[in-house]
């Protein structure tokens, strides 16, 4: 075991998967000599050579489109899009082909590839470097949309994503790329895609969050425990799509009160789908309206105001208190 940041943990996952399987290759802008602008691919070029670590031209569509071709030909490409804000050049490839090749060819050609991209606000970046648009990808049948919340889950989920038979869009919450370290075992570790994790146990209230927001939800849960003796169940979604609602339902039925947290815009965000599932499947167990703490439906403001834009622990605590105040 050693303590690693998320960047180091992702790097470990890539290194070990490339070591274990010659079909795994990495491609993207500045991923080779530079080691990626966030250094996630650092050292891979030296270890595996330029055939397996491709510094590509600046062209997102062909990075993703060629990855699909490589996957059809038997490789397991891991493409990096430098920032999720630039992934829309490749959106067409993801929506029109990557997500559909298995379906179109009736299983003859498949797309076992991963498209990694840093996303989310909180690092005082320029425009287009802070969005949280997971809903675009979650809304596309055929894709899997995965978001880790810390170094250990990042490593384990990336390994699973690389081995997955289907295409995975892998969002990396860059605000916590280096924010803290966690024990990440040297030996192989995977986490199943499509399974949320329960990361804190409580019977009074349910929080569902993912990515960097998970930590704000956990902070809110601690505040509530300290100040009011309220114990929150906290669920880390891990996989936004396909959404597995089983553990969320189970928790909601136990606590009757649910607060959903994400930094994506409020309307049509993943929380909206979770609310719908709860209404369909756990309505009679709910003791209060399900609350959403999300970013407002605006473009992410320039960084001087980004912390005001992002949900924080205080907003989550306030939403929880309102939910708890509803008489059953």
């Amino acid at each position, binding site marked *: 075991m050693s303590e690693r940041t998320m960047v180091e943990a992702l790097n470990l996952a890539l290194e070990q998967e490339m070591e274990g399987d010659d079909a795994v290759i990495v491609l993207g802008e500045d991923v080779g000599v530079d080691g990626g602008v966030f250094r996630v691919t650092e050292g891979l070029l030296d270890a595996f050579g330029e055939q397996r670590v491709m510094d590509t031209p600046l062209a997102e569509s062909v990075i993703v489109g060629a990855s699909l071709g490589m996957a059809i030909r038997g490789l397991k490409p891991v493409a990096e899009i430098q920032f999720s804000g630039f992934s829309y050049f490749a959106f067409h490839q993801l929506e029109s082909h990557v997500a559909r090749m298995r379906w179109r060819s009736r299983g*003859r050609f498949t797309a076992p590839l991963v498209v990694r991209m840093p996303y989310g606000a909180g690092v005082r970046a320029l425009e287009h470097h802070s969005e949280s648009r997971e809903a675009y990808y979650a809304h596309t049948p055929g894709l899997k949309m995965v978001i880790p919340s810390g170094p250990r889950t990042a490593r384990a989920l990336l390994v699973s994503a690389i081995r997955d038979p289907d295409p995975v869009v892998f969002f990396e919450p860059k605000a916590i790329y280096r924010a803290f370290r966690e024990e990440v075992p040297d030996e192989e570790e995977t986490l199943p895609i499509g399974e949320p994790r329960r990361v804190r146990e409580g019977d009074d209230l349910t929080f569902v969050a993912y990515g960097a927001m998970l930590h704000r939800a956990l902070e809110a849960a601690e505040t509530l425990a300290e100040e009011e003796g309220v114990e929150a169940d906290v669920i880390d979604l891990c996989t936004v799509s396909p959404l597995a609602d089983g553990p969320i339902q189970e928790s909601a039925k136990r606590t009757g009160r649910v607060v959903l947290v994400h930094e994506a815009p409020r309307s049509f965000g993943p929380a909206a789908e979770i609310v719908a599932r709860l209404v369909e499947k756990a309505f009679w167990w709910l003791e209060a309206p399900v609350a959403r703490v999300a970013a407002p439906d605006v473009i992410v403001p320039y960084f001087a105001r980004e912390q005001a834009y992002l949900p924080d622990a205080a907003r989550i605590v306030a939403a929880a208190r309102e939910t708890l105040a509803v008489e059953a």
Partner: protein
Amino acid sequence: MPRETIDLPRSVEWLQVLDEEGALDEEWMPDLDDEELLAWHRAMLLSRRFDERLLELQRQGKIGTFAPVRGQEASQIGAVAALEEEDWVVPSFRETAAAVWRGIPLEGLLLYNAGYNEGGEVPEGKHDLPIAIPVASQIPHAVGIAYGAAYEGSDEVVMVFFGDGATSEGDFHESINFAGVFGCPVVFVCQNNQWAISLPREEQTKSKTLAQKGLSAGIPGIQVDGNDPFAVYVAAGEAVERARSGEGPTLIECVTYRLSLHTTADDPSKYRDEEEVEEWEAKDPLPRLQGFLQERDLLDDGAIEELEEEVSGEIEAAWEAASERMAELDDPAVMFDHVWAERPPELERQRETLAKEWSRRDEGAGGEGEE
């Protein structure tokens, strides 16, 4: 010197071997035996008649919208004839003649055009991708397959088809550039059929040729008479050889003409003159190849008539088989297959819910909501 002409590395060649008058340039005539020549002719005739039958079926409402290939058969057959079976073909949506040559079953093409996903199944072992509809979007896939093949040390070559309109799309430029940088074994075949629906070639781009766009990516480009199967074959053969020997990609512009509709939903009389079509009818690749074969005594009117009957029988048998298969394909739940490798629980729930609804309607029970 502050200002001087830069020597660019390549120029663009034009190649024609068999012209519309039947004149042959022996110097460039490829070495093809009689059997090969007759096989080309058969494939060209079969795809022409199949295309006509598709149009008829569409007008009768038996199949849906499709994109006729009429006029472009030489561009396609001349190109794929230069490939080995294990090489890859990445089509767009008008590559019926290429599909016929590659042995894609007509039954599947009919099923596809009749709106059944099962028609998109590519037979096991065939290295041909399914039809791709958004213009130019399939070009990056060819580049990736080519990279993958080279990476694994195989000598497979990839050939990708697209039209003149595609050369305005980003995916075309990104792909030729990417393939150039990594030396991918891919042959880019642009069928310049003069029209991107209603936009004529000269308004698509002010480039004198489309072949010269290869030069911008540092890859060779050549322009050929796309209605001359021999010119296409020579250019494709050289490009395949270059790709196979590790010398990287080539762009081939086949100058041809869409004699028919963009798709069956299109009305070309809105944007082009019948005179222009007539001019190109005179350059039609099918009579051109037939004339050549007759000149060489490889084919006579009797043999053509016999062949006509044979291909028409093949087409009818395929339509019968497709019709029988369609009658069996009545389960709409097929739409839930192959979305992911495994069906997630929520999708399974949706499938079960809809399946119940469908069977309720089939049984006519309940009656509510019935139309």
